[in-house]
């Protein structure tokens, strides 16, 4: 497993494709939002959680596409498909690495996001980071599963968002809701249920991915 993660990290380090492209894309979407929703700062504060998660969802599609497509260059994935390892571990390593890359890109574009939209930071940063971590991993886990399914499709770029957006709708709702509560500095007890939903989603999709990956990768 360490071997697999190391491979992914080196690959990304050499090209820096995923993190950089996700960051720039996130920035661009933020800019478009700032133009499109030119309303009062007070209203913006209410929109912001939703916008943030839309940006994250969009950027994740970009990263997921790349995370899986480079396996097909030189048929590199055949090396681990035919090797005596549990292929579910490959899914888990993709999940972990995808999470790391998405979070890195996010940390880069979240500062401009707050600046451009003139949002003041008067909430618990710790909670906010927590919800980012949980939301990212939930999106990436269902995303990795879908990208695995769409791996050999000739319309992969279209199929991934078409399947991801409806399937991930509980994540978007739950993450947005929790962010709203965090922005309003509400006590944790009021929005505990959303965290529970996110956790359930993350665990189910990670488990299903781990179990089914074997079936998915074989030709």
């Amino acid at each position: 497993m360490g071997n697999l993660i190391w491979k992914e990290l080196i690959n990304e380090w050499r090209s820096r494709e995923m993190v950089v492209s996700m960051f720039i894309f996130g920035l661009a979407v933020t800019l478009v939002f700032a133009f499109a929703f030119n309303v009062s700062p007070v209203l913006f504060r209410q929109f912001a959680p939703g916008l943030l998660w839309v940006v994250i969802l969009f950027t994740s599609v970009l990263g997921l596409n790349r995370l899986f497509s480079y396996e097909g260059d030189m048929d590199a994935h055949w090396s681990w498909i035919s090797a005596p390892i549990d292929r579910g571990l490959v899914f888990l390593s993709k999940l972990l690495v995808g999470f790391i890359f998405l979070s890195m890109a996010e940390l880069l574009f979240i500062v401009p996001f707050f600046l451009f939209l003139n949002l003041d930071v008067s909430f618990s940063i710790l909670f906010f980071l927590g919800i980012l971590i949980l939301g990212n991993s939930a999106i990436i886990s269902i995303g990795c599963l879908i990208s695995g399914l769409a791996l050999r499709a000739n319309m992969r770029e279209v199929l991934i968002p078409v399947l991801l957006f409806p399937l991930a709708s509980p994540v978007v709702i739950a993450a947005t809701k929790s962010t709203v509560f965090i922005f309003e500095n509400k006590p944790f007890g009021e929005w505990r249920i959303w965290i529970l939903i996110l956790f359930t989603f993350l665990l189910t999709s990670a488990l299903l991915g781990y179990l089914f990956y074997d079936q998915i990768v074989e030709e």
Partner: protein
Amino acid sequence: MSFLALRVNKIHFLLAAFLSGINIFLILTIAPQNQLQPDFGNIFYIHVPVAWTAFIGYLLVMIFSILFLWKQGQTWDHFALASAEAGTMFMFLVLITGPIWAKPAWGHFWVWEPRLTTSLVLFLIFLGYFMLREFGGNPEQVSRYAAVLGIIAFLDVPLIFLSVKLWLPELQSHPQVGQYFENTGIMPVLMINYSFLSLLVVISFMIRFRVHNLKKRETHNII
């Protein structure tokens, strides 16, 4: 041999046709009406059973998908695809009848009511399911991909429903449905509705299954 040449199919078809006549007659005449929702509310007798059968269709997709991954028989795959198609057709009817009912009852065509929203999300997922079937690559693999997706889609239902329900808590889930069950004479009519629509879903399932089987036979004969 045509579909109706089989006796069981013929009986099934005639029974469904007969029941559909009775069904419409019942709904338009003697079905108990709701005080708060005159005439227009009678769409309840179609909308609710259709929604149920659609969800059962998707449940069957999951069951057949599991069986396919487990037993590896192509028939299971055809079963799963046929139920997905029947389920999606009914889900489409849900999404048509829902707004027709919502407009006079709530004043808007679309209300983010949990059941209706869950139906919409599922419908979208299954549009993606058919895209995957069509463009996913080599058919032998796509069967496996689709099976996995069929399982995920249904497992996602409770989470979608729960999150939509909590998302807009001020929206009650279908107050109208509750009102209908206050009527005493509702059950017999509803039972006939259900049996009719179940027959309809089964017959569309069988037709689609037959189509897939014939398609497969045809391509194998060419080679």
